[in-house]
């Protein structure tokens, strides 16, 4: 339960971090709430850890042109406490309240949760329903990917060696959209078995992202179209999980989707 040896470097700037990360077997260390357990179990054995915690420039929430910009090193606790987020993107507030526990959220970061790509993580599912974009930076330049392009599978992302997730951009939600995040976990604060994130403006907009339907968040596009056309919660929930093979997962996810939709008045 102790990590294997590694070298450690505290980054002094994003440029410095990118320089350090541009080598074999180097990994960025964000909040460490997933990576350090993996080090302790020796499931991860990097040669070099590049600590991003000193980089204040990567932490913080900002609204510009109605878009929410979340620095990758923003603590989950800061996201949970933000009045701006609660007012404009309450889906994120609801989702992050379900991430781990208070002591985990005090260290855990929003960017770390996305880049770790755990299939049971709440934040990527909420960000999927909000059509978030991810800003990646390397020594060669920057690019922005949609969440669906970024997440490749369980613990797998489109990040190239030497590339760092620096921020997340969330577009403004449609006016008067209602949002709900519902999940089922076996114990409080545990990773969820299944969950649903919904953004709904009757007759205009519906986004429904599923947790637990696949190793990455899945957008239930058929159910979304039906919701905009006026389908009720039960019908949309049936459509959302119709493709799932496993009986238990289909029943559980169907119930959670229906509850989420009922909560937003669908």
């Amino acid at each position, binding site marked *: *339960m*102790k*990590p*294997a*040896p*590694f*070298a*450690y470097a*505290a980054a002094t700037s994003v440029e410095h971090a990118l320089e350090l990360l541009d080598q074999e077997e180097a990994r960025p*260390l964000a909040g*460490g*709430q997933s990576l*350090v*357990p993996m*080090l*302790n*179990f020796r499931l991860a054995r990097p040669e070099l*850890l590049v*600590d991003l*915690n000193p980089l204040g420039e990567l932490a913080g929430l900002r609204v510009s042109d109605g878009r929410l910009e979340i620095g990758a090193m923003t603590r989950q*606790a800061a996201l949970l406490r933000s009045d701006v987020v609660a007012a404009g993107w309450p889906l994120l507030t609801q989702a992050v309240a379900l991430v*781990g*526990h*208070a*002591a*985990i959220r*005090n*260290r855990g970061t929003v960017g770390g949760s996305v880049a770790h790509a755990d299939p049971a993580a709440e934040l990527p599912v909420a960000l999927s329903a909000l059509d978030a974009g991810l800003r990646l930076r390397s020594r060669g330049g920057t690019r922005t990917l949609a969440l669906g392009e970024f997440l490749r599978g369980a613990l797998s992302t489109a990040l190239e060696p030497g590339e760092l997730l620096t921020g997340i951009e969330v577009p403004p939600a449609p006016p008067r959209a209602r949002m709900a995040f519902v999940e089922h976990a076996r114990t*409080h*604060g545990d990773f969820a078995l299944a969950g649903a994130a919904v953004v709904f403006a009757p007759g205009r907009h519906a986004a429904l992202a599923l947790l637990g339907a696949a190793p990455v968040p899945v957008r239930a596009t058929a159910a979304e179209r039906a919701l905009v056309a006026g389908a009720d919660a039960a019908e949309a929930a049936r459509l959302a999980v119709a493709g799932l093979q496993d009986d238990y997962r289909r029943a559980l996810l169907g119930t959670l989707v229906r509850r989420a939709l009922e909560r937003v008045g669908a």
Partner: protein
Amino acid sequence: MNISVQINGDRYQGEVEPRTLLSDFIRHQANLTGTHVGCEHGVCGACTVQLDGQPVRSCLMLAVQADGRSLRTVEGLAAPDAELSPLQRAFSEHHALQCGFCTAGFLISADALLARGGALTEAEIREELAGNLCRCTGYEGIVAAVLEVARAESPEA
């Protein structure tokens, strides 16, 4: 790597490997063994300490990351003359511990919660303490102890 960490107001200096966990630095180099180590992967909460006032898992931080920072551990709760804090007294009175292994983590988490001030409901206390596991008490005494201190500090609640 040489680090210097403020713990309960005292400065502790030491030579650590990059892989040294903060929990091990606290116990083995600062010799503050009140902080307990349970699961070492962030699930049990026994090793919770306050980092600049915020509860964090000391098993999920590297000691080098605490260089220059300020920590509070269970040893910092009682007064210098060893008089127990109101929270510690309430734990004793409500039988909020049996074997005591989890107690330091609960005290540190509850202390940070109470320090935020304001009225606390039983549900809020249970939510905040959900990250700490206790296998003896069934939590009733722990919640009762924190609730009693919260009510004494915010009588209007």
